[in-house]
């Protein structure tokens, strides 16, 4: 069922056009990276503050609450571009072990958020009034750092797995690139999926 959904979505007119475009696809990928940079920095700073390693002169409430909005913009940009990329190669991604791992890690990060939402994220002022930073806030921050870093690495890993060509129905750009490699010699970076 998931597979037929993946096949359906990648052959919609929108994603077919995106997959075939020489310029839009790398731009979407670059914006995905820009979003990661924005979001990653905000997450890092929030987590470091929760751990008590950085910005100790600022209250936790200040850091957590005031980075929240730009952080969400960064996440929105990253997720939007991510959906655009995954949608245009949905069938290939369905078979990709790193993509599957990444989705599982997303589920874990959502669970992490829900578990710690009430005690940490929804009420950072309470953390400031406690004598030391509570252990559960530190645990939340450590888990967040670990999960988001793993997600970024899995994202990169997606490009390293050769798609099972016999099972893929979409005409992908790397097929054309293979001919280019023959003509120009092996001059392309390793691991990039085209």
């Amino acid at each position, binding site marked *: 069922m998931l597979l037929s959904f993946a096949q359906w979505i990648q052959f919609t007119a929108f994603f077919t056009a995106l997959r075939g475009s*020489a310029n839009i696809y*790398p*731009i979407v*990928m*670059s914006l995905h*990276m*820009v979003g*990661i*940079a*924005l*979001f*990653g*920095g*905000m*997450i*890092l*700073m929030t987590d*470091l503050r929760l751990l008590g390693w*950085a*910005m100790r*002169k*600022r*209250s936790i409430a*200040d*850091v957590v609450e*005031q*980075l929240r*909005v*730009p952080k969400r913009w*960064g996440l929105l940009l990253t997720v939007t571009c991510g959906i655009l990329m995954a949608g245009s190669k949905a069938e290939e991604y369905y078979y990709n072990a790193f993509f599957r791992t990444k989705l599982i890690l997303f589920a874990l990060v959502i669970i992490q958020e829900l578990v710690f939402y009430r005690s940490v994220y929804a009420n950072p002022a309470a953390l400031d009034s406690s004598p030391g930073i509570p252990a559960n806030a530190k645990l939340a921050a450590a888990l967040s750092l670990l999960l988001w*870093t793993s997600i*970024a*690495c899995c994202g*990169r*890993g997606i490009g*390293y797995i050769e798609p099972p060509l016999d099972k893929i129905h979409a005409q992908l750009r790397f097929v054309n690139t293979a001919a280019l490699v023959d003509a120009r010699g092996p*001059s*392309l*970076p*390793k*691991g*990039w999926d*085209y």
Partner: protein
Amino acid sequence: MFLLLLQNAIADALNSSEWVFPIAECFHIAAFAWSIGLIAIVDLRLFGVGIGHSTPPQILKATAPWTLIGLAVVLLSGPILFLSDPRMYLHNPSFVFKMYALALAIIFNYTIHRKVASSDSSSQGVRVLVGAVSLALWVSVVFGGLFIAFA
């Protein structure tokens, strides 16, 4: 000539394991997200967005050591990626663009950007301009890096 031989030797070492390149790349990506993101926090504060109870100098002071750690990891992992296939990268226009943008971004970050962000008295117009230039430079670096694969 010697340099080329040395590069080939290093490239062979790097290419002898299929794990070196992806692992270096993961460090590169995680660390660039951290460092550029932290710089972006300062830039957003220069725009007047973000941690409003802190002044730009306070935010710069708090983030600068972490930014430097991130940049150090980026600048250590980057050459590892480069040395795996120097000739390809040197002939890649996106890579060349990225190196220029990176040099400009780093110089800008540690001169004008630092001066304006660490001053309590810089005018709002100057702050917005410097924040915008900083963001534009770092976004160019990210685009240049990604387009290496598409050049």
